[in-house]
């Protein structure tokens, strides 16, 4: 075992895993995070803790991940390349591992122009592929990138993000293949609304046998309203919501019900797709729907770790 996290154990055992997401608050009050975590405890195997999501400053993912651990929930700490150079990245990984964080998602990060500090500089000392290379060396060889030996190596399961909706598809697949070579033990995808396009992407993934070299966890997001769907489609980089889905949301008498239904339909298809090892349920500002979706998708109770 690389990290002996719950996520790793379940993936190795061949379970269909469920990960979800917690976004830390714009607040220095830890009880806020604890409350969020308590509501979601038991409804997923591990929870991504976002890192200044959409470039909006919030409580650090490291601190919020620690609150998760204290509440008995397994975190997947996210770390963007936007906000840290390689010094900060390596020291944060060492610190995270020492605090008991066992999963980490390496991501590029949305451009700061989307957030609340558009005048800031971005770092991008490393890109997410290089970040994976550095972290893999730290874990497997017990060395920092410069070659210095660490007394104790971090225990960490490394994840990467993939967006099946990036153009061109071939480029998106090559990029993922590089991330896998660089060290991605698991991959979480962008929320899938457009199943046709996802299948197109996935068939290229399979033609290269990539689904056998990592654990692909497919992203899904429940839409709360037509307005929310429209907002996401227009404002979240890399998000792709097809016209047909928007139409369904627009004409639904009960938008929440329709949004949940659309999400459940996708879960059903993805669950039956060979090589997909789980779903990543991103509730984007609608955490309270997670229990219902998990219930109705018959994904409860979660397997014991």
């Amino acid at each position, binding site marked *: 075992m690389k990290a002996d996290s719950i996520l790793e154990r379940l993936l190795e055992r061949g379970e269909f895993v469920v990960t979800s997401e917690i976004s830390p608050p714009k607040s220095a009050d830890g009880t806020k995070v604890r409350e969020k975590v308590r509501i979601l405890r038991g409804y997923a195997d591990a929870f991504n803790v976002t890192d200044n999501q959409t470039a909006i400053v919030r409580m650090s993912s490291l601190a919020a991940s620690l609150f998760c651990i204290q509440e008995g929930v397994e975190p997947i700490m996210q770390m963007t390349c936007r906000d840290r150079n390689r010094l900060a990245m390596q020291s944060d990984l060492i610190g995270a591992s020492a605090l008991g964080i066992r999963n980490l998602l390496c991501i590029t990060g949305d451009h700061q122009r989307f957030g609340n500090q558009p005048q800031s500089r971005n770092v991008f000392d*490393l890109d997410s592929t290089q970040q994976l290379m550095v972290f893999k060396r730290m874990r497997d060889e017990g060395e920092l990138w410069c070659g210095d030996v660490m007394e104790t190596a971090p225990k960490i399961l490394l994840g990467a993000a993939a967006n099946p909706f990036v*153009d*061109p598809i071939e480029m998106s697949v090559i990029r993922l293949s590089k991330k896998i070579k660089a060290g991605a033990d698991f991959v979480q995808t962008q929320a899938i609304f457009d199943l046709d396009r996802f299948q197109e992407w996935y068939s290229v993934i399979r033609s290269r046998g990539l689904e056998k070299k990592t654990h692909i966890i497919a992203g899904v997001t429940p839409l709360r309203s037509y307005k929310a769907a429209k907002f996401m489609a227009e404002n979240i980089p890399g998000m792709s919501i097809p016209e047909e889905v928007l139409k369904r949301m627009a004409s639904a008498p009960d938008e929440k019900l329709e949004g949940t239904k659309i999400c459940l339909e996708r879960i059903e298809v993805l669950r039956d797709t060979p090589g997909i090892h789980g779903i990543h349920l991103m509730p984007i500002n609608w955490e309270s729907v997670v229990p219902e979706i998990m219930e109705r998708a018959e994904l409860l109770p979660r397997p014991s770790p």
Partner: protein
Amino acid sequence: MCVYKTRASLHKRYIVLYVEYINPTKECRYLIIGEQKPLPEIISMIEHEGGTKILIVGCRSCVAVCLAGGEEEVLQLADRLREYSNSTSKGWEISTVTLQRQCEKEFDRGIAKLIENTDVILSLGCGVGAQVLGEVYPERIVLPGINTSSMGAPEGRGKWKERCVGCGDCTIQLSGGICPIARCSKMLQNGPCGGSQGGKCEVSPDRDCAWQLIYDRLRLKGRLDLLEIILPPKDWSKARDGGPRIVIKNTEAGR
């Protein structure tokens, strides 16, 4: 093909710096791109400096090509400053001069008399020109009238695009001759971020995604195989991060 560079080969990587001089007798192929500062900012700099005799120093090289600080722009700015002065009774006396290359000391030395007779020196050269002018007259303050942005090339009429950020470690042979450091909003070296859609960058629909351009170019060359190469963490010590760079060429001047 996939090159996964090990640490050993990483340390042995050989760095070559290319330095090209802008030849003023030929049309500039690439240039330093800058934009004139907004008039109110220029006025407030001049007022803060104080004095009534103002000299605008332009440059006939890059900033002339990008229509920011050449002879024409110098004269236009002088007119606008005179207008302002008249309407506010400032009594400013504006004189102008446009040098062949403000970044070369010989040219700057040639205007010693003019400099002596002015209170305020306003440079319409690039950041380099303004600094060299200031070095030639170290006792004087030189106001920067240009916001220097980048190294780039013209693209159609009145439009210039950044092409290079002088990272000191060029790898564009791997990306179809298109620089991802200068042209991707996130300087990504191993492929596009999740925000690349429809050929456009997530930052703005008026920016092309560099990785779409790279993909198209490599496809045209029949070299999509190059995309599979993993570029290891870059050596940014060759870039500005390593401190100001000095390039010495083995010529008389360099010795």
